[in-house]
């Protein structure tokens, strides 16, 4: 009897050890997701993966605007810290680079079709992989544009854009719609201008000066162009420039969705909302480059880049790191994974990517096929992003309301940049 008991216990011990070892070897994945609207899709995908492979995948989604706070709190957790995180820009790389795995030579990297969207540190190590890309520009309602007597082909540069917009604005009452949607400067909308529109002067300046790293100072060479396009936005629009401070992003979207404006500056991510929530016909939608009067801009394509990069926590156990990389490879190669990525993130720069139905990407690709140059996301170099943008937004708001001078915008742009750079050193 005793013998049997001993044997039984020994067997139990062996099994438990074996299963323990197996679990240890398999590792697990913990993804701290950035996008609230993709939460459900990630949870579903994680479940499929677990069912197929037995590897645990935990997905936690940070609340909107709380990613940094959440990430900081979660990264304290040692063994329970996220194994997979999102790093958006240069500043994120500087902050978290010390604990990110060098992804050079991994299967994930080999699946990429382009390395343009990756974040590479000073030593040339690829620390984060751009897993999707986005493009922004001016979204045009073709139907309305044609009603006003123009076609997209009429708009080739800033001059022609201004001519069309001015004319539509002048005839707004008669037409029943205006040129531009409200350029809201509420927090839900201001990033379109302090981030995306500000990319125009930054991109051209960096291109002239050959800047490839976060610069300590900028000159603001093209701020006159920034002013031109901004003035156009706030003049040729139905919104009161004095009240832009509280105009929201959803308000602008609704104006466009309901056919009250022809032009709407935003990005590829708007496609689902416009065709879904507002039932817009996709054939009526086209995205054109942002023109601001820079020489040669008729050859510009859309502004393409990403703030969505995956990075692996090198402080995680070897097994967990491996599990994470395996999971990512599965996401970008498997049927289920690529389908989800195409639905949630549009085109992804991986070999097995599925074609998304988003027409804006077709616009982006068409422009590239015509041999035009990509306007990259130069704003990814912004130091102390939130504070720099807050300064620009404040000055823009005052300028638009007639309470401040354009000089203040220039000062926030240029001097603010230098200060923000200093602050994070």
């Amino acid at each position: 009897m005793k013998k049997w008991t001993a044997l039984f216990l020994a067997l139990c011990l062996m099994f438990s050890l074996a299963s323990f070892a197996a679990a240890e070897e398999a590792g697990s994945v913990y993804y701290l997701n950035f996008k609230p609207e993709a939460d459900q899709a990630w949870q579903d995908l994680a479940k499929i993966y677990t069912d197929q492979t037995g590897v645990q995948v935990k997905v936690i989604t940070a609340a909107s605007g709380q990613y940094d706070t959440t990430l900081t709190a979660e990264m304290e957790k040692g063994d329970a810290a996220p194994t997979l995180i999102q790093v958006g820009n240069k500043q994120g790389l500087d902050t978290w680079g010390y604990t990110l795995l060098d992804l050079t030579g991994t299967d994930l990297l080999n699946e990429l079709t382009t390395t343009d969207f990756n974040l590479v540190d000073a030593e040339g190590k690829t620390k984060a992989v751009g897993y999707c890309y986005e493009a922004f520009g001016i979204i045009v309602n073709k139907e309305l544009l044609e009603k006003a007597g123009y076609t997209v082909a009429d708009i080739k540069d800033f001059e022609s854009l201004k001519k069309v917009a001015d004319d539509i604005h002048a005839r707004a009452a008669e037409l029943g719609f205006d040129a531009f949607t409200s350029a809201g400067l509420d927090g839900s909308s201001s990033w379109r201008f302090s981030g995306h529109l500000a990319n125009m002067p930054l991109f051209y300046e960096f291109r002239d000066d050959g800047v490839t790293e976060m610069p300590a100072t900028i000159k603001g060479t093209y701020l006159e162009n920034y002013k031109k396009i901004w003035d156009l936005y706030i003049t040729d629009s139905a919104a009161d420039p004095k009240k832009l401070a509280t105009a929201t992003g959803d308000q602008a979207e609704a104006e466009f969705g309901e056919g009250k404006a022809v032009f709407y500056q935003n990005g590829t991510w708007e496609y689902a909302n416009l065709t879904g929530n507002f039932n817009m016909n996709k054939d009526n939608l086209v995205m054109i480059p942002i023109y601001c009067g820079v020489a040669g801009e008729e050859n510009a394509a859309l502004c393409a880049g990403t703030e969505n990069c995956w990075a692996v926590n090198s402080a995680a156990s070897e097994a967990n790191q491996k599990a994470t990389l395996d999971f990512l490879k599965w996401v970008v190669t498997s049927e289920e994974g690529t389908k989800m990525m195409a639905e949630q993130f549009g085109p992804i720069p991986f070999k097995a990517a599925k074609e998304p139905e988003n027409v804006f990407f077709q616009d982006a690709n068409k422009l590239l096929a015509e041999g035009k140059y990509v306007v990259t996301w130069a704003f990814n170099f912004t130091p102390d992003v939130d504070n720099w943008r807050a300064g620009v937004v404040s000055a823009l708001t005052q300028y638009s309301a007639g309470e401040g001078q354009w000089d203040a915008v220039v000062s926030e742009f240029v001097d603010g940049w230098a200060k923000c750079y200093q602050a994070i050193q």
Partner: protein
Amino acid sequence: MNKKAKRTDSAALNSSLIRRPIQRQFAIFLLPTFICFCIGFLWPFIQGVYLSFHKFTTISHVEWVGFNNYIKAFNDAGFRHAFGYTALVAGVSLVLINVLSFAVAYALTRNIRGSNLFRGVFFVPNLIGGIVLGYIWQMLFDRILPVSMVNVTSYGFWGLIIVLCWQQVGYMMIIYVAGLMAVPEDMLEAARIDGANGWKTLWHITLPTVMPSITICTFLTLTNSFKLYDQNMVLTNGAPKMKGVFTTEMMALNIAKSFSTANQRGAAQAKAVLFFILVAAISIIQLTVTHRKEVQQ
């Protein structure tokens, strides 16, 4: 002198019958709260002081930088401005909230119809979180003002003051109602017979009696203003920015903004420590002064 002697007297009695037995049960009475206080405040705060001498991303990834963060904090014009601005908001809201809530309390103890209902209504804003009511007021102000409040420093200032009053008058008012009801009727009667007018009665009889209420209300309104974050963030988020300084930014917001950038967290922590020291000093002075007044009365 006399008072002190009395106190020692009762303390002696106190110690034999009450003090010792309680003290023996330290583990039941004080220890649980103290342990939780250490977990929920003291230890995190001490860790914060430790971190203020470091450059850090997470608590486990730190680098000693000495007083660098403090120098950074002092050199930050926005921080210095935020300190003065916080003091200004605290001062003005302290006066306004107390005067208004006293006035409302005074009116509501004048036997007017529906005063119980009004007391209830005034209390309601206390029940809503700061972010929600900030948003609602922002919409309201946007309707009323010629330009959005984030454009003009004074709009932002008074907007914040109005919201603070709206939110806190109800609570403070109830404390004052209590104080006013404790004013002895016969003293008021005597004053009236002596021919004292309304103001004189208010000044010499009513106010001294409600002094304890004033102490509590001052303390609560002051600490509320010093900690204020939600409403400030929602209403203006510090805007407008003039000469490189966010003109309507209060301390908590300034510190929280620095916290949002990983490389500034050390400086943010140093600001927090500095702010704490300053506020603690002010609170001590305030408590001592009002307490002394109370004793004098």
